[in-house]
């Protein structure tokens, strides 16, 4: 057996000369013996090899393109076996490379390994560093999530600053807008051009390193050693450490995938990857972006390239080391500062400067506010990510992609956005804990009387919603009619505030029953069970009865219409109150006869009154649809949609639109 191996080995060596090669590789002399500090170079090589291997496997599952990139990364992370680990290792190893690079560089400079005759190898090292940073920058975009999208967008926007930069930017982005071509180009750079260049330059770097050898000098105390086996062992242990760290992080802190890129939504938590934070912070230090983004970084790079030349001057090396350390400390400080500013609300919220009129206080306030906004945006992104998970588990990812196909059509994501821009100038949407969307702040000169805001729409059409209008202390509160002219209107002043003030237990119970009955009109999908229960125990019937029983002189149906009782025109119709169609029509035109007819409306605009010319409407059908479904909570629990679908499946085939959409379409057709 042994003889066969020996023969095979001889045969191979005769043809390849591999023994001499391996010998040359393994028995390089290390003056002064093996050392732990020599391992950074090998670790970088190992990290690059790991990136190449994991990168190629990721490549087999990744698809560039604005409808596929995020989706395929989602599939890698959550759909493929071991995909999260693969992506995680690639994600974290990239960061380790960026940490090791400056270590390696500082080590080379401090140990004088950059001076003659090793200048060229030093320059190659700097080129390698730029290539790795380029890989980091291009790779950050590829998942096409909000974070990568906006961070990279800033980087390419800055490309246009220097003369000729506009053309350069167009070339990098693949046009004037981010899209498919941006991804195909970035991907080709990330997986093809940059790694190939890196491999070539790395080869030269290693070859030249071998030519010049290690800079250290042998001493009697530390005898020389060969590369094999002790240095190899140390290198291997270093690499093992890297690998374990990457695996551990990939498992315990899974590589994040934010919500899919949305060019129309700003992203308040847009930050570059942490190792570019010092550049991000640097940019803020200068009035001119050109100086912060182009001039200063270029000067620093120029200095780094000039190190071997500076070293020729007297004390040049010392200057180099000092400036180098200053640069590293500076970058470290800028990174810290960027992190500090983003965490100002957490770290310093309790420590405001004493004098509230001092500029320090203003600065502190500014930073706390900014950090709060940053964290709110982060929390929002996190929240949306979770929602998108739910949506994908439920609907799957349509061909149009997660952003257009799911995010744009989800009421739980779109509803708050539309509310914020179209409704929140009057209405609020705040839950019991005061969280949600705040309405307008009182004007500075508010007299406490003039109405300026509209009801809090949280819990719309629930029994509690109706109770707010039936309890004397609540109907005139700020969250109901208190900030509108309805506070002194018929309902509040003449009825609730006078007739319903001192109700007995039976009266109060009747109000509860009325509320239940009215809420049942809305047919809220998430309340179906409670409604069925109320129907069974007779609460609904009693509520309907109570609607027409006059309290003292007036009954609800004296003003409101409820099915066959009462007439339209004097107060909002209670028939189907809060149903999809009711709310859709209400927002479309609250001044219609069915709602606050003509003058009884208090300043609420008609958002979609032009049925024949939708272009004139303040909200599109899609926006109204999102808003109505969100206010009603129709999509809050997706599981309930299954029942809806089962019900729809029982209807004759060919019915494709959901009940809600059909209602809206019908309404549009009617008008």
């Amino acid at each position, binding site marked *: 057996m042994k003889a066969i191996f020996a023969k095979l*080995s001889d045969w191979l060596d005769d043809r390849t000369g591999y023994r001499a090669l391996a010998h040359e590789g393994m028995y390089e002399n290390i003056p002064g013996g093996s050392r732990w500090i020599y391992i950074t170079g090998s670790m970088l090589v190992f990290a690059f090899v790991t990136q190449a291997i994991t990168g190629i*496997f990721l490549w087999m599952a990744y698809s560039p393109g604005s409808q596929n990139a995020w989706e395929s990364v989602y599939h890698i992370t959550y759909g493929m*076996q071991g995909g999260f680990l693969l992506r995680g290792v690639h994600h974290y190893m990239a960061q380790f490379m960026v940490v090791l690079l400056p270590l390696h560089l500082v080590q080379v400079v401090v140990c004088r390994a950059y001076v003659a005759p090793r200048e060229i190898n030093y320059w190659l090292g700097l080129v390698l560093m730029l290539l790795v940073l380029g890989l980091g920058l291009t790779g950050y975009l590829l998942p096409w999530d909000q974070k990568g999208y906006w961070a990279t967008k800033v980087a390419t926007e800055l490309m246009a600053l220097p003369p000729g930069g506009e053309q350069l930017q167009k070339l990098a982005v693949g046009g004037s807008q981010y899209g498919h071509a941006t991804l195909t180009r970035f991907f080709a750079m990330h997986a093809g051009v940059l790694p190939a260049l890196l491999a070539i330059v790395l080869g030269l770097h290693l070859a030249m390193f071998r030519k010049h050898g290690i800079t250290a000098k042998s001493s009697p105390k530390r005898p020389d050693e060969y590369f*094999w086996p002790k240095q190899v062992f140390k290198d*291997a242990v270093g690499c*093992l450490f890297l690998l374990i760290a990457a695996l551990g992080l990939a498992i315990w802190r899974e590589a994040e995938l934010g919500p899919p890129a949305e060019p129309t939504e700003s992203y308040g938590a847009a930050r570059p990857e942490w190792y570019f934070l010092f550049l991000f912070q640097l940019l803020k230090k200068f009035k001119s972006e050109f100086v912060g983004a182009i001039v200063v970084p270029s000067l620093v790079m120029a200095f780094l390239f000039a190190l071997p030349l500076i070293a020729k001057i007297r004390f040049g090396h010392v200057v180099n080391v000092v400036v180098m350390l200053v640069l590293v400390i500076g970058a470290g400080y800028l990174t810290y500062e960027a992190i500090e500013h983003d965490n100002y609300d957490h770290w310093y919220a309790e420590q405001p400067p004493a004098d509230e009129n001092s500029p320090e206080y203003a600065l502190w306030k500014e930073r706390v506010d900014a950090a709060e906004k940053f964290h709110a945006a982060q929390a929002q992104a996190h929240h949306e990510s979770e929602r998108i998970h739910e949506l994908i588990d439920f609907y799957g*990812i*349509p061909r149009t992609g997660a952003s257009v196909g799911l995010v744009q059509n989800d009421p739980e994501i779109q509803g708050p956005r539309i509310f914020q821009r179209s409704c929140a100038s009057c209405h609020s949407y705040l839950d019991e804990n005061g969280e949600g969307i705040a309405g307008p702040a009182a004007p500075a000169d508010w007299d406490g009387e003039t109405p300026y805001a509209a009801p809090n729409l949280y819990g719309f059409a629930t029994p509690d919603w109706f109770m707010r209008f039936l309890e004397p202390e609540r109907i005139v509160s700020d969250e109901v009619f208190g900030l509108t002219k309805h506070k002194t209107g018929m309902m509040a002043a003449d009825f609730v505030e006078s007739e319903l003030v001192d109700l007995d237990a039976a009266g109060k119970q009747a109000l509860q029953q009325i509320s239940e009955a009215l809420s049942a009109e809305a047919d809220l999908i998430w309340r179906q069970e409670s409604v069925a229960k109320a129907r069974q125990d007779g609460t609904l019937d009693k509520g309907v009865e109570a609607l027409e029983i006059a309290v003292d002189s007036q009954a609800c149906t004296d003003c409101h219409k409820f099915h066959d009782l009462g007439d339209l025109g004097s107060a909002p119709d209670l028939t189907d109150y809060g149903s999809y169609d009711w709310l859709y029509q209400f927002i479309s035109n609250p001044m219609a006869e069915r709602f606050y007819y003509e003058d009884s409306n208090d300043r609420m605009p008609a958002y979609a009154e032009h049925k024949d010319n939708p272009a004139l409407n303040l909200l599109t059908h899609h926006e109204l649809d999102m808003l109505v479904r969100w206010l009603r909570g129709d999509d809050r629990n997706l599981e309930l949609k299954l029942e809806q679908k089962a019900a729809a499946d029982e209807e004759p085939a060919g019915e494709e639109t959901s009940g809600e959409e059909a209602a809206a379409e019908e309404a549009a057709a009617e008008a």
Partner: protein
Amino acid sequence: MDSNQSSVPDEPAADDVATGDPDTEPRRNFVFEMGSLIIGGLVGLVPLLVGLVSFLDPLFGSKKKPRLYADAGGGDDDLIRISSLGALEVDGEPQRFPVIADKQDAWNYIPDQPIGAVFVQRLANDEVRVFNATCPHAGCSVSCVGTAFHCPCHNSAFALDGSKLVSDSGRTNPSPRPLDSLEVDSQRLKEDQEVWVKFQNFYTGKHEKKPKS
């Protein structure tokens, strides 16, 4: 990694000018050598293994349907509606129909997509014959010209009953088996007058008809 190169001679060449002499401590060296080989091999292999696990996903990974479609039919093994019986003439030529079903395409889930094609021929009032339109030879799509099925790729030919035809010139038919017939739901055919088929694709180039799962 350098450390992966295992077949290295143990001693430096005699003409080596290096001053270091690792052979003075043979036992300790053995520990470092084995350590280097094991750790080096490990760090080299693990990234590869991590990649392989996800590469092998098509063989071992599980597929999860979106909740909305989880209970609905349309999967590979389910019956799929092809046509109404009324659309087919008794004893007419085989008609080509697309097979429409929900499609899981890696990250996309797309309802009602064409996933294949079948030929349906109505033999009698309530008797139909259905073939998968894929040629059993090499997977091209066969077409029907009046009295026979032809495959444009390598000239396979099949009679209307699916059996292999030998061409007039006597050229051999490369297909290893007749056209793949598909199971028809007889109950729906008789009661609902509709053609529902258990749509399957089969491995091509083999004598036996083995469904792809």
